[in-house]
């Protein structure tokens, strides 16, 4: 593990003076390698190491813990701080319905996340409506509808081949006529470089004014997490992130990359395929996981 490696690297520092740029060089290299192998983006790692170096240099070498542990503590604290505030329940809009729009790359877990969110809101006694706004993927609407049926929540499906905009408008007016408090829009997976499909999202945003637009991102994503997040942020704007497939053994460095480059909070984490597998995000847990 990283802390074991750093223990070894810093053995000779024990009981000596201060942490200096020179004597923590090797240790910082270990941290860099740990973060890169955890899929944190290269540029994000570079900046993070510089920040840690600034915080660490000049510190007295404590006698109570080993220098390696001291550096790990600094790194861990910096990571947790960077990952942002611990979970805050998304506030509902003053006038219902609150509209949440999900977006992201193909296969990230949006449709499943939409259903998981519906389950959560239903559990909080907030009546949700799921909206199947993906007209492209084969059986996409059926997939969302089946999940809705499992949860016994409402699901709006537009006419086949209907544009997402039309489907969402119809869904929203239906929501306003019934006691729906939260509308959760599942959109089609798309590439951040697909101008036409990114414009579709922008159009949906302008027409529906969602209260929350959340990026659904796969925890297994590698270096490209930065470009993807930037693409969606610049084209549409991100309010928060849902990180899926955290039940695997991926270290999840994409979380750090996305947070560092967008400044937006990770709201929820997907921990499995079942609809109950959604949890609020804990910055300290992911920090430990990324460090490995």
């Amino acid at each position, binding site marked *: 593990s990283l802390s074991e490696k750093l223990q070894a690297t810093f053995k000779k520092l024990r009981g000596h003076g201060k942490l200096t740029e020179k004597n923590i060089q090797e240790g910082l290299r270990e941290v860099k*390698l740990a973060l*890169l*192998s*955890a*899929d944190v*983006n*290269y*540029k994000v790692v570079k900046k993070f190491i510089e920040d840690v170096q600034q915080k660490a240099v000049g510190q007295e070498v404590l006698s109570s813990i080993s220098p390696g542990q001291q550096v790990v503590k600094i790194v861990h604290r910096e990571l947790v701080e960077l990952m942002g505030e611990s979970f805050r329940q998304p506030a509902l809009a003053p006038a219902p319905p609150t509209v949440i729009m999900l977006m992201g*790359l*193909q*296969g*990230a*877990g949006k449709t499943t996340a939409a259903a998981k969110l519906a389950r959560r809101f239903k559990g909080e006694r907030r009546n949700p409506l799921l909206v199947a706004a993906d007209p*492209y*993927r*084969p*059986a*996409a609407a*059926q*997939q969302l509808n*089946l*999940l809705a049926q*499992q949860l016994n929540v409402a699901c709006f499906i537009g006419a086949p081949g209907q544009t997402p905009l039309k489907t969402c408008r119809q869904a929203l007016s239906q929501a306003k006529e019934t006691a729906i408090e939260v509308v959760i829009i599942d959109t089609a997976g798309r*590439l*951040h*470089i697909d101008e036409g499909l990114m414009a579709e999202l922008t159009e949906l945003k302008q027409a529906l004014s969602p209260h929350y637009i959340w990026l659904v991102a*796969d925890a*297994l*994503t*590698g*270096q*490209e997490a930065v*470009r*993807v997040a930037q693409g969606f942020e610049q084209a549409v704007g991100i309010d928060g992130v849902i990180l899926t*497939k955290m*039940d*695997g*053994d*991926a*270290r999840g*460095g*994409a979380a750090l990359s996305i947070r560092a480059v967008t400044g937006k909070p990770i709201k929820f984490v997907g921990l499995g*395929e079942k609809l109950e597998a959604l949890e609020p995000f804990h910055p300290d847990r992911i920090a430990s996981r990324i460090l490995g």
Partner: protein
Amino acid sequence: VRGQRAITPEILDEIEELLISADLGVNTSQTVIDYIQQELKRRELKDYLSIKNGIQERLLQIIGTNHNGLNLTATTAVIMVLGVNGGGKTTTIGKLAYRYQKQGKKVVLAAADTFRAAAVEQLKIWGQRSGAGVIGYQTGADPSAVVYDAATAAKARGADILIIDTAGRLHTKKNLMEELKKMKRVVGRCIPGAPHETLLVLDATTGQNAIIQARQFHQDLELSGLVLTKLDGTAKGGVAIGIVAELGLPIKLIGVGEGLDDLQDFDAQEFVSALFY
């Protein structure tokens, strides 16, 4: 990394950034950097362009150029497709079915993802689009039973190719990996030698976890090849290089979009050149 620049010390940092950013990972990037450093010492490289060519040559050596051709000589050739959730298995099968149907082959698809909502419906639509027949039951059915019935039907119908779609699963879930092993045994009992191809589908946006996925799937199911999907995005899929180096598995196919035609044979030279775009 542009054309005729002279070599500077910053070059190694730039190379490291290029390779890491393409998801080659720390280990593979380091072997390439060590190689370039050694070539620089021997004054074998005189400018930027020669470094770029040196990197490409080294990577081509690592991954090799013999990747293609699915083994489809059996009377009823069986392709089993597996991988973690959302990687593009079902879509890849639709594209493959279309390719073979266009070649005049008779293709049957086994909808053996009996877990995920609308998985069978999704594959049935790909069946309609490609012209392939689909054998599938309701959610909750035993996936091995689907495999068995599909293999029996494929033989009875004189199908040339049977492609088995499986549910996405994380390699860390032992019981799900056991389920795949059982499906593989069952199809082998029904059609001797099957599956003739056991393909792991990897999403090109995946980071270093892809190596762990490949190791585990290979250990549990003995893969015959890899499929790298979503290369039409900005991800380079560089993690595949380390996988090929370690496991010696060929990359048979790549996915470059969501349509029926968006399937190509893997081209090592193109793949390596694309790292520099």
